[in-house]
């Protein structure tokens, strides 16, 4: 039973949190509301509360969105990004998961040192090694290819560490029982380890998706052809075009933002688990 003082404190705290969240939500609400307006209306509403109110639902309500979806390749960029994310999620789970499993369960020389190196790699920012990646991919002749984009993105020290942390707690006797059930090590990994670790698989998938969706630097270096561009690069290309209106720009930004918001709201548990189990944040 809460005391009166505790109840009062809870009310104050709730009010403060609502005000704080509104402060962070204002730009998003503004973006969303104006993405349905023509440029004239955006300018007119700029200095009033109407800037946060969407226009009345009429025939031209979705004009900005329709223009973007029909006159630009934005749908293609979105589909490209979804495809890259799907491929990277699958490959990332396999490669980083196997590495994490080895570090957690297989005894091999210098295992702890390998783990230390991987942990050290977690603190190296992507930007510092991106030139090496670029030169490497260029040398292999893979610039402007899907493989060239995906290859350096597969291995992720953060994900390896995340998998390792979770796999360490898997009981060894399940592996022993599986061995007696004629289960090969590879089959064990796919039919036992991954299904038993659904939570970390979900966490890694979410982080990978957000990484791919939000990444700008690496795809901007690798891709030169319009067909392969990602949503973020597409966003830049569309918004920097002179013919794109402010309303259309806001519509593109909304479309790029919505998947991220959906993912965050659906998988906030996994994201928090990832942060809690490793003490760090990715994506």
């Amino acid at each position, binding site marked *: 039973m809460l005391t009166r003082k505790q109840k009062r404190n809870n009310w104050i705290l709730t009010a403060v949190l609502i005000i704080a969240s509104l402060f962070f939500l204002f730009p998003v609400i503004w973006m969303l509301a104006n993405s349905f307006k023509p440029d004239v209306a955006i300018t007119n509403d700029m200095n009033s509360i109407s800037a946060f109110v969407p226009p009345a639902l009429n025939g031209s309500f979705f004009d900005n969105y329709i223009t973007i979806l029909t006159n630009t390749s934005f749908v293609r960029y979105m589909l490209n990004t979804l495809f890259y994310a799907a491929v990277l999620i699958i490959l990332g789970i396999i490669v980083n998961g196997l590495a994490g499993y080895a570090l957690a369960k297989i005894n091999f020389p210098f295992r702890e040192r390998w783990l230390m190196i991987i942990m050290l790699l977690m603190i190296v920012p992507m930007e510092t090694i991106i030139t090496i990646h670029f030169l490497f991919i260029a040398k292999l002749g893979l610039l402007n290819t899907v493989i060239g984009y995906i290859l350096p993105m597969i291995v992720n020290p953060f994900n390896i560490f995340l998998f390792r942390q979770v796999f360490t707690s898997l009981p060894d*006797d*399940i592996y022993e*029982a*599986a*061995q*007696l*059930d*004629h*289960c090969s090590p590879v089959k064990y990994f796919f039919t*036992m380890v991954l299904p038993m670790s659904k939570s970390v698989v979900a966490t890694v998938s979410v982080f990978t998706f957000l990484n791919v969706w939000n990444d700008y630097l690496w795809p901007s270096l690798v891709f030169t052809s319009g067909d392969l561009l990602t949503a973020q690069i597409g966003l830049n290309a569309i918004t920097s075009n002179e013919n794109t209106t402010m309303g259309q720009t806001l519509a593109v930004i909304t479309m790029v933002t919505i998947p991220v918001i959906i993912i965050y709201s659906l998988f906030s548990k996994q994201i928090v688990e990832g942060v809690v189990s490793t003490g760090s944040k990715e994506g």
Partner: protein
Amino acid sequence: MGFIELKNVCKKYDKTDKNAVTDFNLSIKEKEFIAFVGPSGCGKSTTLRMIAGFEEISSGELYIDGKKMNETAPMDRGISMVFQNYALYPHMTVEKNISYGLKNMKVPADEIKRKTDWAVKILGLEEYRYRKPKNLSGGQRQRVALGRAIVKNQKVFLMDEPLSNLDAKLRVSMRNEISKLHRELGSTTIYVTHDQVEAMTMADRIVIMKDGVIQQTGAPMELYEHPANKFVAGFIGSPQMNFYNVRLDGRTIIFKDNNKAELPETIAGKLSKYKNGLIMGIRGEDIKLDAQNLDLNTGSRQKAIIDNTEIMGNENNLYFEFGGVTSVARVSKYEVSHIGDTVEFVMMPHRMHFFDPETEKAVVL
């Protein structure tokens, strides 16, 4: 050669000075139920895991059905195992847990179904068939683990403390079920436990281990009646055997507190070489308080004050100080004594065990 043969098997872990298991020799007959029993860290689970193939054998040889198995992978040894923590696959239903091994062994689907149905029925798991392990009780989980082991029709069952996570009542019923299953399936079973009651009630033969060394191997009653050393005598039987450091003067045993008891000439003669004393052991049930036994052994009557009692229902344990140690007498439920009562008792001379004070080995009478 036995069905399972362990010859001079040793286990030494890296970076340790001592062997976890030393010179383990055992021949197990087909269809035999063997229990490895001993205190924690005695090497019983390690030995079982070496038989299973989960631990490398440092030296010595292991044969199963005449074939040397030292280097054979666990899955090719023809064994099934029930683990202490059940080791069920948490994301699979009861049915899938049981049939998983058969699927991997490429058994035809109709055969898998037949065997799974049989296991589910025999273990009373019909209504839990589609549940996952997290929705089962400890006893049900243990049954699933047993089901997984029996469907594969292997010749050897290994059980690593399978009942240790269950409550006392369930343990008794599962003990029964495992014994019944063993009789029905006729497989060779090696059962590891630290609970001597489990070993005594289930096994054809018991192997008692301490510090990685076999102390004695034999049928349960053989171990109970003729323990090879003080450790076995103390480990088997509940309450534990009473031990006294005694001196001998002719036919008279003199306890530390100067109480005396008379021995028959035949026994005293065999103990005459222990001039400096020896260890005498007697089980609680061989300390008698009834009038008939008191009358028959008037020269060896002892007195003590009861300082604790355990009412077990079917019998009573009476605790008292005697011979310099806390002793326990196990009497029938009709022999009621209370704390503070002075009781008279006799220690049955023919039921006494004697142990060499230096080696602690039993003196053969």
